[in-house]
């Protein structure tokens, strides 16, 4: 089994899993907040926020990666603040790969959560309020459990998108084996050389397996949760 894939290949698989996991986890609270704001609140600039969230879907991934690089790179305005103030470097690190994956996957996550939020009656939170629950408690105990299927679907979609993200990742953090060489970057590199097809296809097979597993898991989990909360 170990011979089946090179060390670099296994590294790429492990890195992609790590990058996707963190990208999903870190963007989840923001995803829920943005979805909630878009579904429930009316505020100035709502359409602008909506557009910004969806921008990564519209822009070529390379452009998103380039914008990340000039913003969060060591020379970029935000990257410089993060580096000087907190010692956080994103460019050419796996954390940067996670950021790129999170940004690319964010619209998918927000859309899924927003859809399930729109199916939940906002008046239930009012009812919780009259029973003594503060707004944050009303959200946590009523709305959050009811949108759990949407959160699961959104997270898995985001995870799957993060697993497959290539353009923005390689533009922002390049391709450093063991550090930023994700599964798609490794596949791309193998496809550049004559005779690399075999290794590339083995990685593709792993990609497909992971993606299928994630989607089946999501389907199963969201159904189980929907059944448990009696929403179906």
């Amino acid at each position, binding site marked *: 089994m170990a011979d089946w894939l090179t060390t670099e290949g296994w590294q790429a698989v492990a890195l992609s899993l790590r990058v996707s996991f963190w990208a999903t986890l870190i963007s989840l609270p923001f995803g829920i907040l943005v979805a909630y704001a878009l579904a429930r609140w009316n505020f100035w600039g709502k359409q602008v926020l909506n557009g910004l969230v969806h921008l990564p879907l519209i822009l070529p991934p390379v452009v998103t990666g380039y914008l990340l690089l000039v913003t969060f790179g060591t020379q970029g305005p935000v990257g410089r603040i993060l580096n000087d103030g907190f010692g956080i470097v994103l460019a*050419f690190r796996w954390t940067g790969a996670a950021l790129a994956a999170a940004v690319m996957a964010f619209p998918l996550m927000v859309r899924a959560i927003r859809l399930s939020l729109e199916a939940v009656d906002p008046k239930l939170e009012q009812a919780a309020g009259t029973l003594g629950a503060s707004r944050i408690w009303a959200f946590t105990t009523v709305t959050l459990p009811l949108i759990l299927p949407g959160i699961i679907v959104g997270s898995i979609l985001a995870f799957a998108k993060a697993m497959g993200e290539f353009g923005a990742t390689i533009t922002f953090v390049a391709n450093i084996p063991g550090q930023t060489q994700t599964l798609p970057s490794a596949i791309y590199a193998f496809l550049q050389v*004559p005779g690399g097809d075999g290794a590339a296809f083995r990685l593709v097979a792993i990609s497909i397996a992971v993606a299928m597993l994630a989607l089946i898991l999501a389907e199963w989990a969201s159904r189980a949760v929907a059944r448990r909360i009696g929403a179906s």
Partner: protein
Amino acid sequence: MIRATCLCCLVLCAACTGLRPAQADELTIFAAASLKTALDAVAADWQAATGDTVSISYGGTSALARQIQQGAPADIFVSSSSDWMNVLAESGRIQAGTRRDLFGNTLVLVAHDAGLPSVKIGPDLDLAGMLAGRKLSMALVDSVPAGQYGKAALDHLGLWSSVKANVVQSENVRAALSLVALGEAPLGIVYGSDAIADDAADDAVTVIGTFPTDTHPLITFPAALVADSDAPGAAPFLHHLSSDAADAIFAAQGFLILN
């Protein structure tokens, strides 16, 4: 109405059977992306002189080679690597006798900081010291030709192991160049032609050294007629690509004219 329909049919039939004015031909060229500036100029001259229409599809050499292998309707393939041309030759996808190396390229060390002095590239070069822990930008060192040549050169000079950990790899040489232009990497190794193209654009990078040609395999851009090509204008255009007129244009873009 009937007459108009007949006329349309006639035109369609003419198009289908390749019935065209005797001289003008339609050529489809698949060429490596780094040739764009120079090749566009050469093709424009050719079009003006012959009336042939030259359409050029630029892309990564590997992607173009795979497309030709799958039967893409190209007449001429200009590759940035001999390896891929070899693959096409072995599978009979190019007309064997027509292959020729059009020109070469140089490998240069570029810097973001315009004030950096020029260096002589040799075994004594303290590349690791110049980087001081920062990044060296290259194209993919195992798969993209510019990266492969760069790695070979550093290996030859005995510098590879000392800078290996600092190398960031991009999917193509232009992306590697832009990391230097943005200052995300202070130094990079790219083709001389790319550095010149960037110079012409916004002068964000400075060439501080050229790798001696004996440090890496000869960098060549081989071209050949594709096996299925039946355009009569293809062979003359391939020939024109190694003419003095074309050479002058390629040389101006930083390519190395062979022999």
